[in-house]
């Protein structure tokens, strides 16, 4: 504790950090409350619209059978997508040791946490029966990509929470040490709970840093898995436009692109609102802007790579989708996305005159909106394409309900962020301090010998998770049915005969069973003389589908010179049946029929169940392996929290007393 106090005394800058981080804790301005009130109204309207939708059915949100997936699933993809931007600014820049990230990390981590929660919540209005949400757990189908979505999002949300929580430990300790009286009762209690035992010793810092590195390594593949799985919810069906192998990386890049844009917006907003100009400078925006447009260029390239193969080959479905995008029903939106979402932002960052906070901020607004539009196009166009008639049905139409629900969710993001940073410091004080007095403190940022080997191990674990996610996809979807063996029959010979006699013409039928083969013989006599060349139709009776005996034709055979027609047939089922043979003497005359009873002991059905695959349960094994890995990830994350806590333990009681004493 004393070391913190000393270091705070050393540089004026650090006092500024603490003061700046506590700005949101002061009595808020009228403008703040006005903004909160406005945002709350929008959120409440959104919730009310959703209640209306629950009461009226999803039709009021503009959904039809030809636009069964539309705005809400696009919202899920877009809003969870921006969450990754927060994670990347923080995690990747942490791992690469980019010290300029320090003033941005808390804002971007907070944004990552808030947006993943809001984005995941959009699954609820998307569902037809949200009251059965528990079915996702109690009736879960491991083979379903929607189920993977749930698992990936939940794990990622937990990781985001840990990533947000850990750096709060030193920050809250510093604030408690500096201005305990200005915090207010609620915050003081919360901060004491979060930071209990933290004294800022070298050991504690090293443990915290190593824990943060591990969480950062875990969170990157987790976020990749979230966006891959979101893409697979589309790409694992055979619909043109969605069934694209490029979609998983395409979604990951889209998430990063729009996410960095939202980080820029959130940073700009809080910088302006709380006058953080001393910490967040134009340089930060320019760097973020570079990252954003680099991702934008990759996204542009992937868009082209996504469209070209289908357009080139000219297969009907994908071609129609591309045509619809370039010239058809959604063309306006697609070109709007292309210009406003990729070309304009690139230009705004590239041109030196506009490469400032305003220019980059406008570029970020364009990117966030255009990327949402792109997601809506992707979802609604393919959803509205009828694969039977190869034509577009009614495409999705916005209604006030779906727009209100979406706006409510969008408004919830700044609302939750503003409230969140009234509770926790909005600058990462320890990080800012460390970067400003790296030389004074002598704690090099990445030279943590204990953490790096751990980090490598967890990185490997992350790679295995990804690999198994992909293998699981494959295996589960290929699971084949297992079937029981067919019924055996004991070979016995049974003979039966009957005579069907009509006045002059008679047909005598004999049916003999020889193993599985039944020989049916019909002898046609006219006035006791055999009839040659007579066409005899054989039938067996069945009780299938109708009461009584229905006749199933077995074939027609002409009689030979002895008036005999013979037919060999294999019965499909065992049991007694009537065999009949019919002869039509003249075109207008009555048919002459003879019958015999045949009790089939041995039958061979032509239906053969598909053989059981040797590895029918491989998909299941892989899926459960995946669960094991998710549990390992969760345990790894919990272990990091536990490590930091353990590092705080030995002097826990003393430090709290000290903190309250100062």
């Amino acid at each position, binding site marked *: 504790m004393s070391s913190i106090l000393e270091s705070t005394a050393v540089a004026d800058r650090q006092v500024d950090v603490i003061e700046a981080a506590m700005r949101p804790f002061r009595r808020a301005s009228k403008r703040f409350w006005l903004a909160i009130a406005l945002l709350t109204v929008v959120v409440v309207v959104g919730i009310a619209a959703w209640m209306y939708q629950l009461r009226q059915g999803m039709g009021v949100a503009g959904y039809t059978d030809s636009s069964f997936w539309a705005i809400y699933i696009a919202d899920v993809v877009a809003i969870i997508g921006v969450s990754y931007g927060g994670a990347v600014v923080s995690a990747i820049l942490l791992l690469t040791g980019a010290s300029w990230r320090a003033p941005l990390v808390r804002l971007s981590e907070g944004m990552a946490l808030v947006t993943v929660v809001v984005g995941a919540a959009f699954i609820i209005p998307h569902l037809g029966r949200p009251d059965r949400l528990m079915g996702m757990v109690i009736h879960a189908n491991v083979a379903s990509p929607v189920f993977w979505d749930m698992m990936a999002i939940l794990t990622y949300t937990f990781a985001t929470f840990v990533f947000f929580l850990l750096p709060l430990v030193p920050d809250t300790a510093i604030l408690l040490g500096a201005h305990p009286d200005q915090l207010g009762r609620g915050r003081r209690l919360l901060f004491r709970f979060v930071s209990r035992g933290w004294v800022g010793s070298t050991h504690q810092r090293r443990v915290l840093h190593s824990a943060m590195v591990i969480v950062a390594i875990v969170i990157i593949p987790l976020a990749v898995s979230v966006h891959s799985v979101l893409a697979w919810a589309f790409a694992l069906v055979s619909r043109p436009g969605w069934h694209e192998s490029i979609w998983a990386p395409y979604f990951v890049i889209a998430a990063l692109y729009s996410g960095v844009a939202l980080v820029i917006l959130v940073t700009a907003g809080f910088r302006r609102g709380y006058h953080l100009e001393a910490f967040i400078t134009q340089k930060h925006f320019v760097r973020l802007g570079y990252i954003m447009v680099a991702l934008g260029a990759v996204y542009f390239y992937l868009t082209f790579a996504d469209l070209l193969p289908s357009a080139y080959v000219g297969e009907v479905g994908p071609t129609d989708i591309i045509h619809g995008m370039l010239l058809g029903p959604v063309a306006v939106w697609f070109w709007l996305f292309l210009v406003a979402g990729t070309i304009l932002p690139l230009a705004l960052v590239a041109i030196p005159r506009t490469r400032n906070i305003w220019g980059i901020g406008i570029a970020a607004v364009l990117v966030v909106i255009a990327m949402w539009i792109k997601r809506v196009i992707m979802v609604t166009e393919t959803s509205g394409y009828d694969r039977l008639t190869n034509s577009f049905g009614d495409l999705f139409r916005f209604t006030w309900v779906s727009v209100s629900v979406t706006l409510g969710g969008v408004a919830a993001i700044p609302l939750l962020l503003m409230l969140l940073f009234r509770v926790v410091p909005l600058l990462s004080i320890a990080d800012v301090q460390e970067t400003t007095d790296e030389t004074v403190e002598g704690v090099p940022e990445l030279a943590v010998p204990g953490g790096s080997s751990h980090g490598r191990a967890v990185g490997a674990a992350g790679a295995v998770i990804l690999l198994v996610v992909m293998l699981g996809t494959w295996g589960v979807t290929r699971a084949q049915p297992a079937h029981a063996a067919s019924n055996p029959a004991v070979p016995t010979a049974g003979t039966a005969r009957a005579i069907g006699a009509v006045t002059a013409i008679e047909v005598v039928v004999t049916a003999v069973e020889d193993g599985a083969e039944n020989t049916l013989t019909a002898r046609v006599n006219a006035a006791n003389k055999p009839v040659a060349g007579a066409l005899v139709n054989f039938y067996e009776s069945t009780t299938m*589908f109708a009461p009584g005996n229905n006749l199933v034709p077995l074939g027609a055979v002409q009689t030979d010179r002895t008036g005999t027609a013979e037919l060999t047939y294999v019965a499909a089922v065992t049991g007694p049946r009537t065999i009949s043979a019919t002869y039509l003497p003249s075109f207008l005359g009555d048919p002459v029929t003879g019958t015999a009873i045949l009790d089939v002991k041995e039958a061979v059905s032509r239906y053969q169940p598909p053989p059981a695959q040797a590895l029918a349960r491989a998909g299941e094994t892989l899926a459960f392996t995946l669960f094991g890995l998710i549990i390992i990830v969760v345990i790894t994350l919990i272990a990091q929290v536990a490590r930091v806590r353990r590092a705080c333990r030995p002097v826990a009681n003393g430090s709290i007393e000290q903190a309250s004493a100062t």
Partner: protein
Amino acid sequence: MTGGSKGHGFPVDLRLSPAGEELDMSRRNLLRGLGLAGVAAAGGALGLVAYRDEAQAATVEGVSGQEHQWCRVVDLRACKGERKCVAACQERHGLPPEQTWMRTLSWHDEAGKEFFMPVMCQMCQNPPCLKVCPVSATIKTDQGVVLVDQDQCIGSRACMAACPYEARYFNWNEPAPTHRMPAPSPNTPQFPANQVGTVGKCVLCADWIPYSNQLPACVEACPRGAHFIGDLVTDVAVNGQSTVRLSTFLREGNAVRFKEELGTDSRCYYIPGNGQPVGGPLVGVQ
């Protein structure tokens, strides 16, 4: 005829491409490799979540799969586009006009003659809809009928995205009360009436076929006998007017299956006729 030895399920080989078999084999080998990797990596099975694949679905209703394997045959030579099957289906299941479990596609040839093709749930044996359902609400009975458990459906509409035959519909509003439960059929969870917020589709009048001799509504309604209901085990199919030996009928009619290339292994056979293509009408669709 070689289909049986190939493990195809039905003796008449209706597959168009022999390359499919090779693909299948390499895939199986690959799967074996993946399985070994999976077993090696397995950290222990967790009994937390029910796993439903087709192997498990086969045990849903005891052993009666040995007795019947339902399928349907549509004789396109007979279809004249009267859409009486569609009307009967709407009536029987109380469906709103925008929800048609059976559709009759139509298109014109160069001479201007109109052709028709009824399309409904193809009762795939490798159903894409079953795999993607997050709550295991789509089931395949051991008699090969694909059904939606209306009490379990969460309304995610993932199955609507997955179905290549566009055979699934969502109950956007409260559906009209239906009487899908006539006397002989037991009350099973698979056959409750349609509910708002869930997905519905052709049920092959499955509440009728095993329990009574009543034929599916579309089969009974067709005045030309274009619709057949069949049983692969007993090798019999009927259209309400005549009875045929299924295997012979399919072989002689050069039966094909719709979108064979997707590997859905459907249980709906089309007897082509009048020269119209089966599936994929490209020009002049209504």
